[in-house]
């Protein structure tokens, strides 16, 4: 069976949940595998995601019709190129409201496009409410609950909090120490380039730490993709 084109919504109803980090890592993963990827940054005021991937990630203002057309029309093209959308928390509600208004999910099904919501959790009740609302509104939407240990939720109640979220797949973005984060967060940092040919100004310790941090994350991405491919496989 023909494979669908994946569209990943990296989203959170609250800020500082790590959704942009996931969006970056996902594009890094796809590029490090030699595959194309197209991204959209929905924060026109501070497009950090787009700045890091010039040429691959486009800035869109989804509060405007032009921005919606630029993005959603492109997302529905079945070209087997994965799309990654960093849904800024400020436009979370309006973004999914627009998706409902234009019938995106129904059209995606017709167009062989598979949306996946990478929902980033935090400890607040509105995060749980938002996840539940998303799951209820679109029961067929592939929902993945993402926990960024360096962002939220933290503390001894973290597992209890996570357990309350909709029964869905889980993705864990591990915590990272400050020097490693600083290296990752540099404006000119490129994970595929670092993994292929580490720059001379990157210390061995930082390189080892980066690999240790990103390897399990990329493995989860890989397993998730494999799972989706197997589900769509004709011979199972």
């Amino acid at each position, binding site marked *: 069976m023909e494979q669908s084109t994946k569209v990943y919504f990296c989203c959170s109803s609250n800020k500082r949940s790590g959704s942009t980090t996931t969006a970056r890592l996902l594009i890094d993963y796809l590029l490090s595998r030699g595959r194309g990827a197209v991204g959209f940054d929905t924060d026109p005021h501070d497009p950090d995601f787009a700045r890091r991937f010039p040429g691959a990630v486009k800035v869109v203002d989804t509060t405007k019709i032009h921005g919606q*057309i630029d993005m959603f029309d492109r997302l*529905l093209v079945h070209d087997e190129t994965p799309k990654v959308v960093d849904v800024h928390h400020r436009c979370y509600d309006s973004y999914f409201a627009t998706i409902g*208004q*234009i019938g995106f999910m129904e059209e995606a099904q017709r167009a062989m496009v598979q949306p996946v919501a990478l929902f980033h959790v935090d400890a607040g009740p509105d995060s749980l409410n938002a996840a539940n609302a998303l799951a209820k509104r679109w029961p067929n939407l592939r929902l993945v609950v993402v926990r960024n240990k360096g962002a939220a939720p933290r503390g001894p109640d973290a597992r209890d909090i996570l357990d309350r979220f909709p029964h869905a797949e889980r993705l864990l973005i591990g915590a990272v120490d400050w020097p490693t984060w600083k290296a990752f967060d540099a404006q000119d940092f490129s994970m595929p380039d670092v993994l292929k040919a580490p720059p001379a100004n990157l210390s061995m310790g930082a390189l080892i730490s980066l690999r240790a941090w990103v390897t399990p994350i990329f493995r989860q991405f890989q397993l998730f993709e494999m799972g989706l491919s197997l589900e769509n496989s004709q011979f199972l």
Partner: protein
Amino acid sequence: MKPTVILVGADKGGVGKTTVARAVADYLIGKNIALRAFDTESPRGTLKRFHGDITETVDIGSTADQMRILDTLNTAQVTVSLVDTRAGSLAQTLRVLRDIGFLDAVHEGQFNFILMHVLGASIASLEEIAETAPFVANGHYFLVKNYVNETTFFEWDPETYMSYFAKSRSADEISIPKLSEMAYEQVDIAGTPFSTFVANKTADGRPAAHSFVLRGYVRTWQRKIADEFDRIGLIELVTEPPNRS
């Protein structure tokens, strides 16, 4: 079925009267109701541009054209006739229908008459309701609030609102939601019925390349209008069986 005349009119221009007529046409065609339409914006009508295959352009003031519409109600194979009146000529059109005896025929049960009175967002427009209602005493009178721009129809002022809308006890209300200007303009450029635009087709049935986002907005807008027409039972009104004599 009893022949039905649906008159879409307004005594002000720019209230979206032809948009409403187009929405009615799309809805009825989508429900497989055979329809013919008359565009009274003679000589060049907007309704005809979008529904050319079912629309004739007429001059409601012309006796010959009055005969074309009304003398054929019982003989035409299509029993539902949609008349899009020229802007500012609703009162004149109703007087013509009265003077030629059509309203009497409605009273006698020979025809169904549905008036969709598209309101403007002004006191003057609301004052037309009381003037119009007597003409539709034996028909079905709908006050259409077409939410173009940021019109509120005085809903923010309950006293004013109730003084006009509460008085029209014989009339039901239909709300037409606002459609994104860009989506509307794209349909205008395409020159097709709303449904054809949503289906991503050109006027001659070939695949088009319209934006999915804009088609989505038009589709949602149409659904909301269909909900309103379902609510008022428009299909039941136009498919009413003839009176048994």
